[in-house]
């Protein structure tokens, strides 16, 4: 099994998801009252920074199986953009607007990018060139 050292992409990804979930709970638990956006923005920024940190960490890995990563991540991205779109539709349907809508929309962007990243990483980390040489896979 491929036991090379890899950055803690899954742990960072889960922390990033936890931050945007916390922001969403913070905003939704105060409805319909006006709520200061500062904490939600801070959580969103921290989450986005972790997403960027994950990509930088992955980009520095020598010989990472990017082809395998993208083969999985692109289809996952399609699925999670669809679910994010449905959530966004529900926000618009409920007349969420202004800064709250912006924070929630950007949170959905982080969610829709980070989950496929985790899927692609989990598959690519077990890529074995010897297995590939035998016959590849049909994703």
């Amino acid at each position, binding site marked *: 099994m491929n036991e090379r050292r890899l950055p803690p992409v899954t742990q960072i990804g*889960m922390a990033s998801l936890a931050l945007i979930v916390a922001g969403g*709970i913070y905003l939704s638990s105060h409805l*319909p009252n006006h709520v200061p956006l500062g904490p939600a923005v801070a959580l969103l920024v921290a989450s986005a920074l972790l997403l960027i940190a994950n990509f930088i960490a992955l980009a520095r890995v020598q010989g990472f199986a990017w082809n395998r990563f993208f083969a999985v991540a692109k289809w996952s991205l399609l699925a999670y953009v669809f679910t994010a779109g449905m959530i966004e539709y*529900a926000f618009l*349907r409920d007349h969420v607007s202004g800064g709250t809508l912006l924070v929630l929309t950007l949170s959905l962007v982080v969610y829709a990018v980070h989950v496929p990243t985790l899927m692609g990483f*989990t598959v690519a980390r077990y890529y074995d060139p010897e*297995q590939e040489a*035998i016959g*590849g*896979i049909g994703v």
Partner: protein
Amino acid sequence: MADVLAPPPGIEAEGLPPGAIERPDFEIVPRKGLIIVGVLAVLLIVAIAVNKLWPLMFLHVAGGAAWTITDLFLGLVLGPIIARMSIPARVEFTTRLMPKMVLIMPTVVTLTLAAGWQLGSKLGTVLSSYPNHGWVVASFIVVGVMSVIALGLLEPANIAVLIELKKPRPNPQVIERLMKRFIYSAGILGVMQIATLVIMTKLSAG
């Protein structure tokens, strides 16, 4: 139809039987199931658009029941059974179960949460003025924790184990590691579903 897979080198050293591993042919994402998922997505969009009580209640309750029961059964009943199966039996069971889970879980979760949010907006139960608002926020937190575990651990493991099984020479150690992650995650989600049941019954009882 079944494929016969050559065992990877060193498989005997891991205590696995010599010879080929047989696994049924499978699709990672069952294409026929996508039709059902599409129909359910359309039903959800229509239910939110018309904003009527019954369709929202139906999708929330039916989706929630399917989600809760699946998590409880998989995490607390099937999980321990799978963990005690032989590798060939586990491989066969996995190739039949996991592709279905790829479609079932995201679908029931989306139905439950989207219809539930719209239902809460319509009934006013998500508003901070609702008498049991603390319980509603508790449900947000439980669902939030479950979502992070499901999206960060369970779903990637589900996809990765299927892709490993699709290889001409799947590595049993990788499958073992990913299945362990899947089963532990499902177990945690199963236990957390008990909290969901407590909160939802409290909210229904008032």
